[in-house]
């Protein structure tokens, strides 16, 4: 990692030095710091599981009937034609670069869900659970980060980074597992501290005293969460791993290959973060809520942008040997109505749509499941958010027997008890 890329700590000060200084500050104050140092030293445990996941979140509900499961000739088909790919599937003519990468990816064409409202669909696809006012379920990112983080104690970057979008929160896992939101240029606001380290640590000491006594007075979990977040924040401010966010440092031709727009640079940033060991990265591409003029919007804007960035990501990961350890999930809240409406748009549709997955050992070049001739029904075994998540967990080496206990003491199975999509692993 290039030291000179970043300077969250003053010149000449390495992370280890910094920690030493903290110890000095602590000694002067006569008590141990209970947050601030995160040097978990069991190096032999490192690198057990280097797997990661990148979710490409298509906010708004992409029209998968126009991308991955075309129905040319059907009244619902729309104007786009199919093209052949490097895998055993055909996709939309406006995805020519992805066509060369499809041997790495699988299309699940039999997604069938029930939530066709943006908020509900976003929640369900991110958690595997339908919204329930009485419980907040953790999202994909928080769950996977939580499961894989233990095995990479050297990681100071938050284990769940969300690029260009809000993702879904950590639910009952607590704010320490919240998505770390950054914009696609990787710039992190307020990361720099312009203060001598000893003094900062003395400030932290004063803060720690207040935090601890507040928590002791039985104020509940909100107060505890805050302390955990402060610790992670200090970790991050003092780590040279943050260089991974400097997407600007990539060669121009690499930036160009991904596309010099938000989503392109976000995908490039995702690759850098995965390289640095971040277990879960979500990259957001909005603008899929095409109730009007859908096909001109898709062919003119959305598809070229997505095609360039997504294909660059798959190709780049493969060339770097990272694809075998990195799961890619492409999906939105739902699909769009096969019927084209009076405004030349398509509306929300959850009953039959497609998601795309690949990497981390999942089988590429295939389509799993089928819809009927006009795309209005799934005609093979339908798959759900839970099933997709279970499959990704399996690919990442996370046991499906993992069970959390929610705040109200209910057992919650990881991936909500979904079943693995076997075709992806045969």
């Amino acid at each position, binding site marked *: 990692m290039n030291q000179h890329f970043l300077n969250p700590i003053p010149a000449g000060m390495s992370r280890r030095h910094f920690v030493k200084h903290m110890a000095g500050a602590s000694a002067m104050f006569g008590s141990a710091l209970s947050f601030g140092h995160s040097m978990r030293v069991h190096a032999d445990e490192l690198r057990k599981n280097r797997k990661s996941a990148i979710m490409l979140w298509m906010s708004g509900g992409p029209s998968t009937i126009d991308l991955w499961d075309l129905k040319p000739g059907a009244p619902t088909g729309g104007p786009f034609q199919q093209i052949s790919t490097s895998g055993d599937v055909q996709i939309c003519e406006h995805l020519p670069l992805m066509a060369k990468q499809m041997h790495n990816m699988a299309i699940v064409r039999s997604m069938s869900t029930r939530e066709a409202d943006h908020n509900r669909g976003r929640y369900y696809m991110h958690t595997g659970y339908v919204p329930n006012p009485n419980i907040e379920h953790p999202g994909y990112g928080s769950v996977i980060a939580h499961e894989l983080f233990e095995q990479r104690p050297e990681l100071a970057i938050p284990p769940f980074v969300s690029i260009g979008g809000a993702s879904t929160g950590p639910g009952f896992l607590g704010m320490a597992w919240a998505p770390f939101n950054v914009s696609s240029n990787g710039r992190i606001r307020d990361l720099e501290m312009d203060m001598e380290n000893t*003094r900062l640590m003395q400030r932290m000491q*004063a803060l720690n005293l207040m*935090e601890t006594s507040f928590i002791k007075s039985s104020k509940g979990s*909100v107060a505890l969460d805050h302390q955990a977040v*402060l610790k992670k924040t200090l970790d991050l401010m003092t780590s040279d791993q943050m260089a991974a966010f400097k997407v600007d440092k990539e060669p121009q031709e690499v930036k160009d290959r991904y596309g010099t727009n938000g989503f392109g640079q976000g995908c490039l940033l995702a690759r850098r973060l995965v390289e640095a060991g971040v277990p879960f990265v979500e990259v957001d591409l*909005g603008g899929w809520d095409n*109730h009007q003029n859908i096909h001109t919007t898709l062919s003119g804007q959305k598809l070229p942008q997505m095609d360039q960035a997504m294909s660059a990501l798959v190709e780049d990961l493969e060339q770097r040997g990272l694809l075998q350890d990195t799961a890619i999930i492409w999906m939105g809240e739902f699909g769009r109505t096969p019927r084209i409406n009076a405004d030349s748009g398509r509306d929300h549709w959850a009953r039959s749509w497609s998601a795309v997955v690949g990497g981390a050992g999942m089988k590429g070049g295939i389509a799993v499941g089928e819809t009927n001739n006009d795309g209005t029904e799934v005609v093979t075994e339908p798959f759900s958010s839970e099933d997709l998540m279970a499959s990704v967990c399996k690919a990442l080496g996370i046991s499906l027997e993992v069970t959390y206990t929610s705040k109200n003491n209910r057992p919650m199975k990881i991936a909500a008890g979904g079943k693995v999509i076997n075709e992806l692993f045969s």
Partner: protein
Amino acid sequence: MRCAFLARYSPVAADAVRAFLCSSCLAVAWGAGLSVSAADAELPPQIAIIDDLIDQDWKDFEVRPAPDLDDTQWCRRVFLDIVGRIPTYEELAEFARDRATDKKAKLVERLLYSDTYTEEYARNWSTIWTNILIGRSGGTEDRSLTNRDGMQKYLRDSFATNKSYNRMAYELITASGSTKPGSENFNGAVNFLVNKVNDEDGVLATSATSKIFLGLQVQCTQCHNHPFNKWKQQTFWEFNAFFRQTVALRRFISGTNDIDHAELTDQDFAGQAGDPDDAVIFYELRNGLTKSAYPVFMGDEPIDPRGLVSDVNRRKELAKFVMDSEYLDKMIVNRMWGHFLGYGFTKPMDDLGPHNPASHPELLETLGREFRDHSYDLKQLITWITLSRPYQLSCTITAYNKVDDPSVGEPPKFSHFYLRQMQAEDLYQSLVVAGDAKVRGSYEQQEAERRRWLGQFVVAFGTDEGDEATTFNGSIPQALMMFNGDLIKRATNTDAESLIGKLARSDAKVPEKVTRLYLTGLARRPTRDELTLASKLLTARNGNTTEALQDLWWAILNSNEFILQH
């Protein structure tokens, strides 16, 4: 001077306070523990109604309320909730000096009715309502027709004059005029609907109006009948038909193609069958069949189906129905209760549908009725809630109330105050006003600066409904801002006119200065350990009081005790 309260604190702190109070000519103690009795004859009877019904629930569920919150901390709580910022040191001191048994009622009255606070009251509630009506990002997106300044101006004027709530609702639903302050025909109220009527036949206007004012979540029924919702798809489109005369027109800067502002207006509507005497609308069922709908309010009598505005103004007809609906009353009472107590009687707070029963149905109904009977006067409602028993309780969780935990899905019993984070807007205002993080420039410049700062926490989801989330949620970006951000730098700066600068220069002794910082930030005195730590900090800074106070103030601002409303 020997006061009972001083004995409650460590000798060091007590001495410090005494010395400091003397030097400030404050003769009287803080936190004297006098609480308002609900039996007080002068208090509005609605307070007793609340107390009785809440108490009944405590008995039924065998919980015992937490002890009352210390008066000084209660002062901080009520400032944050009514004017959106923590009190200044002087304001705390004034409250502490008051020995009257009705000091809390007097403070609430002052915050609501004194000229001193009119502007801050209006600013706070217009901020809250701007977020409710157009979201945190409303008016900031490309191509948005909404003018955020116009929305805020309308709301500020409304709250400054204490416009009745039903009047406001009526105006927001029926407004026509232009969006931008200073433009011809300006009517800021139009900004609620101006960006919600043109696209998709006004479905956003439909779902926002029903959700915000009536607590009816109908967005799912747009496309299909919903299994858990009494509303059917037909009901949605009948409600939607009220908005179909309404259009937002773009007004251009003369001679250019640049939009200057928008104008919301009602136009003659011939219906989708082209007959203005029978202005019908059509919608599609999921199976592709088409059905027709006319304006009908939630299964009530159909209105005149004609579409000419001179015959029928559909939005005005809708507003009349809304005015008569008991959901109007319940929704605002639930919203205000949720604002002050942290949880509404339903969760989500703005879903009052029959599938979502309230935790205290009788209280919700009674308060709604009382509010209607008292002319929808928001200031009276605020008085009832802030002086009620549950609002006086501390956050302390005891063996007798620990089952009362709404965060795990239990219906709230309000037997202790629920900790919650300040809103980003509250933090900003607290640091600017109480923390002396001065912003310079005109009102507009200050507002622009505030908006820029707030904007950093908003993340949009990129859907047509303008959904958004905030990263001011206790996660790392917020912590980084609190550690290193410009606002914190300003709040902790040591200029001559700053909080720290002035305090460092004052004649008071160091422990007094420390005490004053704790009171300003946390509305409490430092503990003995905290005073000890402060003196160590001073040593570490080689006796530089300014720097030591700066370190301490930074730590106070970053503590959970500061950021949490408790």
